[in-house]
């Protein structure tokens, strides 16, 4: 219990420090900090439509973040969610634009294809990792760029919307009747889907044999090998789950708030989702809460220019600072580590939260 409280306090402290630094910066450059703060609150919580904007951004962050949690728990540093989501979006928009079937059939087929596509995109990196030990940080990062180029191609070529021009090319909007949500409101279906996914991932990670294996493989891989666990299979499954959820998010975006695929204009949800998951220490409930927080931040980023003259990009700094600080441990510094390497070795690839919090515990005991 003590450990949980300590960890939670550490995480809140990080966020407070990040906001403090950014607001200090705003104050130094002569902006009215009070109006920015109230703008953030209005944009994410209090203003009209603010809550639904927050939820609009929470949903993709949460869905992707849950997948990343599975992957990170297995010790696999899959940072390709952005690309996997784009592949899902492309497949979904393709089905929606090209097939004039009944609504239910179109949405089902598109979603299934998006899920499979995302899983396959992630599975490539996973397969290369378990078969050839190809570093997944690199392969997933590169696959993001490949997916980005595919989007570029689709939006300027096959599914180009003739109405758009210039840099922000996009596909045509899918038919209004296919949408489960306009851009302004919240869709019950999508919220319910997200809740189901969250419960499913929780059951998978916390209550199933596979989940136990995942944590075991990610945490104590040599012990897992001695136990004779099918390590490669567990790792590969973690990639498939992460990719499937990112692909699902792509479909949700298409049938939900976005309605089409746009080049260059989408905020990098896949990377923010990474921060969401790390902030939550790969816990399911934590991911939901932290997705709400970052969803609110995203809503505020889009709202702020309406009420304040502070540059929007200012709040991006908060996001960056949180990512920079979240895995840092003041306790580590205070403890004056005997060997720097033992920790950095461990933290290069698997910033295992367990390891860090154990260290924090050790510091507390002292």
């Amino acid at each position, binding site marked *: 219990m003590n450990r949980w409280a300590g960890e939670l306090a550490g995480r809140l402290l990080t966020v407070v420090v990040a906001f403090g630094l950014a607001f200090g910066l705003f104050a130094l*450059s*002569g*902006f009215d900090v009070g109006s920015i703060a109230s703008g953030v609150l209005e944009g994410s919580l209090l203003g009209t439509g603010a809550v639904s904007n927050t939820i609009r951004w929470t949903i993709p962050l949460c869905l992707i973040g849950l997948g990343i949690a599975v992957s990170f728990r297995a010790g696999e540093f899959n*940072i390709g969610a952005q690309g996997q989501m784009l592949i899902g979006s492309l497949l979904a928009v393709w089905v929606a634009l090209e097939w004039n079937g009944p609504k239910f059939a179109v949405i089902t087929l598109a979603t299934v294809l998006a899920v499979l596509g995302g899983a396959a995109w992630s599975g490539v990196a996973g397969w*290369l*990792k378990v078969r*050839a*030990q*190809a*570093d997944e*940080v*690199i*392969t997933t*990062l*590169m*696959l993001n*760029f*490949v997916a980005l*180029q*595919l989007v*570029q*191609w689709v939006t*300027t070529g096959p599914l180009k919307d003739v109405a758009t021009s210039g840099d922000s090319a996009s596909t045509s909007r899918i038919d209004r009747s296919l949408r489960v949500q306009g851009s302004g409101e919240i869709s019950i279906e999508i919220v319910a889907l997200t809740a189901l996914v969250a419960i499913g991932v929780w059951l998978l990670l916390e209550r199933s044999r596979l989940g136990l294996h995942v944590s075991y493989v990610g945490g104590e*891989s*040599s012990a897992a090998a001695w136990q004779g*666990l099918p*390590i*490669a299979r567990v790792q590969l499954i973690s990639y498939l789950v992460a990719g499937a959820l990112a692909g699902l998010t792509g479909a949700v975006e298409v049938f939900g708030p976005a309605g089409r695929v746009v080049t260059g204009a989408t905020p990098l949800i896949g*990377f923010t989702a*990474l921060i969401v998951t*790390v902030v939550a220490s790969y816990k399911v409930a934590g991911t939901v809460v932290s997705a709400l927080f970052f969803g609110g931040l995203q809503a505020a980023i889009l709202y702020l220019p309406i009420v304040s003259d502070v*540059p929007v*990009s*200012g*709040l*991006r*700094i*908060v*996001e*960056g*600072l*949180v*990512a*920079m*600080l*979240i*895995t*840092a*441990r003041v306790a*580590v*510094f205070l403890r004056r*580590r005997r060997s*720097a*390497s033992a920790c*950095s070795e461990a*933290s*290069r*690839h698997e*910033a295992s939260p367990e390891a*860090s919090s154990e260290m924090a515990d050790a510091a507390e005991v002292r």
Partner: protein
Amino acid sequence: MEEFVASSIRTSIPLALAGVGSLFAVRAGIFHLGIEGLMLASAFAAVGVAHATSSVLLAVGAALAVSALLSLVYWALIDKLGANAIIAGLGLTTACIGGTAYFLDAIFDRRGRLDSPVGLPRPIRSAEDGLGAYVSELSILGWLTPVLVFIAWMILRRSRLGLRITAVGTYSYGAQAAGVQEQRVRLQAMLLTSIGAALAGTELALGGLSAFSEGMTNGRGFIALAAALFGLMHPLGTAAAAVFFGAAEAVGVVTQIQGFDLLPRPFILMIPFVLTIAAVTASAIVRKRTSAPKEETNIA
């Protein structure tokens, strides 16, 4: 054809500078995803100072200083506070993307773009037409790039620091046993990387356009990392990979200009990334085959 060659060389210069710079960090065992942010911040610092003072020398100095300062913060987070290098690196890049856009607005009151009254000097001015015209467009940093690559090679291969960097990255316990102060070596490696990133950012901003625009690095820092890996973490290999990546981009530009399309441009731009995946996989397989089976658990 000349246009194609010139265009590939121009696009490959920042990639080569950042890629070779990133070698120091990567060889020291840090996969430096913050290099994209360092490039962007340096480009901004260079244009900002050039805009204010009209001095190229001060602009380059500012780029180097900003890049070094941010690297110091990144190093402190990783080595002193035990932060995860990849998450913190992505955070650094995000903060720089936000930060440059913010300061562009807060200091210069501009949105999106800031012009610089001066650019990097172009030492060789020759003929008006043909290859000569393209050659005269190369900035002094472009001409210096081969020298810098060679210096990086010498540092990595021949200097005590370079050998220590590689030792720390490949066999940390061995390096410690030999009395190498790991943290200090990683700091030095990071500062060398910051030089590469700063020069790449400067070249990008002041080499051709003499302007800064929001998000102008556009993933080039990540591509430079890919070049380092594709070039087998050797300075010459990295520089060659940078030229190759530059050429792939130039093929895209030239086909677009001339209107013939063998392949749609996005597919040509994909090639470097696909090849990097292939190269990383191939080198991993080679490593697996040649080295004795470690006590690795993933074999199952």
